[in-house]
């Protein structure tokens, strides 16, 4: 199969404005069959606009928006997707089973109600009215509605907000099962550990642009910073003055050092304090990488654009 056939959703050179506000500027992203792409970025970065374009809720001012090679406003394209939005108040007097049957009726070859309910862990809730469910249960029902049409592409917008840790883990397991069956997922999330746990690729947006796209590993590798922690008598102020050390401080009796040259700093620390113990060296996580990337993009902005946005 050639590469273009593997692309299930695509934005290319997309522009979207709301009046004078530029929501998206020359934005491109591709989602391939069977992969999970996490869309990350601070509020107002353009994630919601990008998703709304792919769902056919908005029209781009310029550029190409495609879902399975079609216009997303074509219902035949949307028959292949499942959707879980961040905010959707479903009719509270309808029972979970009725909501599932209704949503499944929009699709050509849906899963059975029982199968959808089991996959999302709501099989015990089928006869309950939606309004009587807890917030976390309602999110699980929305997830069941997203997968009930046997979609080839799932849009999940902040799916685990309001879920406890165990429920979140079960949802992640269900997402992994769907991915293994060849379903693609476009995930937006504020939880970076969620992206780290699930994503094949991450796409970081800021100020209406894609500022980074690549694997989770590649994103983390962009940030050379590592953190050193240890129990040591060496003075934090002294360590601060060493070359390549960006920060050093003492917290709860432990020395915390941030540096881009961990090996050299560790060697110097061991020389300075033979009693040093409980040494830990960690590469910065996705969170640090993300913070650094978005900060860079802010600093890189010319003055004029910052005012418009």
């Amino acid at each position, binding site marked *: 199969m050639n590469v273009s056939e593997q692309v299930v959703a695509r934005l290319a050179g997309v522009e979207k404005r709301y009046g004078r506000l530029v929501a998206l500027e020359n934005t491109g992203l591709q989602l391939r069959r069977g992969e999970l792409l996490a869309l990350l970025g601070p509020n107002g970065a353009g994630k919601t606009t990008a998703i709304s374009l792919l769902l056919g809720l908005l029209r781009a001012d310029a550029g190409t928006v495609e879902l399975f090679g079609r216009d997303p406003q074509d219902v035949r394209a949307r028959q292949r997707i499942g959707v879980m939005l961040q905010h959707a108040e479903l009719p509270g007097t*309808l029972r979970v089973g009725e909501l599932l049957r209704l949503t499944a009726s929009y699709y050509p070859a849906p899963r059975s109600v029982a199968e959808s309910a089991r996959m999302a862990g709501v099989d015990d809730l089928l006869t309950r009215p939606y309004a009587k469910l807890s917030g976390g249960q309602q999110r699980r029902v929305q997830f069941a509605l997203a997968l009930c049409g046997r979609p080839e592409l799932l849009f999940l917008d902040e799916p685990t907000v309001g879920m406890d840790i165990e429920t979140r883990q079960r949802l992640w397991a269900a997402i992994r099962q769907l991915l293994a069956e060849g379903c693609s997922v476009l995930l937006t999330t504020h939880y970076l550990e969620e992206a780290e746990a699930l994503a094949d690729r991450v796409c970081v947006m800021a100020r209406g642009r894609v500022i980074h796209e690549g694997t989770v590993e590649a994103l983390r590798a962009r940030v050379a910073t590592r953190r050193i922690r240890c129990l040591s008598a060496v003075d934090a102020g002294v360590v601060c003055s060493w070359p390549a050390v960006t920060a050093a401080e003492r917290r709860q009796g432990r020395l915390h050092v941030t540096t881009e040259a961990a090996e050299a700093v560790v060697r110097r620390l061991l020389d300075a304090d033979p009693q040093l113990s409980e040494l830990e060296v960690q590469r910065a996580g996705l969170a640090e990488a993300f913070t650094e990337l978005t900060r860079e993009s802010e600093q890189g902005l010319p003055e004029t654009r910052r005012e418009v946005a």
Partner: protein
Amino acid sequence: MEHAMPIPLPAAATMSRRRMLGAYLAEMRSECLRYLRAPGFILPMTLFSTVFYLMFGVLLNHGEASRYLLASYGAFGIIGPGLFGFGVSLAIERDGGLLTLKRALPMPPGAYLLGKMVMAMIAASVVVALLLAIGILLAHVSLSPGQMLALLATGAFGVLPFCALGMFVGTLLKGQGAPGLLNLVYLPMAFLSGLWLPLSMLPRALQRIAPVWPSYHLNQLTQAAVGLNHDPLLGHVLALAGFAAVFLWLAARRLRRNG
């Protein structure tokens, strides 16, 4: 501009005509169920006109006055489910994100509107049936079966222009503000088109502009159904169809632009 080739759909996955029909039916069923289970939404709409009719058509008036009031409160009662059933629910669903979700899902575009239309038609028919029961059993208005059917049919189809008007108002604002604005449309319009007091009792200037209101034309149809209006009806039917088309067009345009 380059285009990726459409990924061919597996043969089994095209929407059959039967499944398409099923989607429409499922939408209608859900729409009816959700409101039948929410009496707080349904009862005020149906009770308004029946209580008025009990007071003015049964307790305070008799004979031909009861017949006249059956038709005018009938028109009043028919308008309610259209304006409120459509307007309030649309405003709330736009606010809560349900409409956005449904637009993103592959729901057949007409199913959403048809579901609400059918719900409004059923509610309007129930209101007319209640008024008929009160009129015949308590006010002793004598009606032929044909007249009863005519009034029921006027209710079922006469509600549609008001669905369109309610839909338009529902696109103007979101959430809980809709009932207030709809009452500002509903009550003055009912008064100005002679649904509370006969038009002949209103100032001449108001009588002259009455045909501006869709409710005036609906009232002419309900009066005809109970045998009190023998003028040609085609003009009123066309006027109502025109109102329906204009407000549907305005509402659809606003929904497309603003969601």
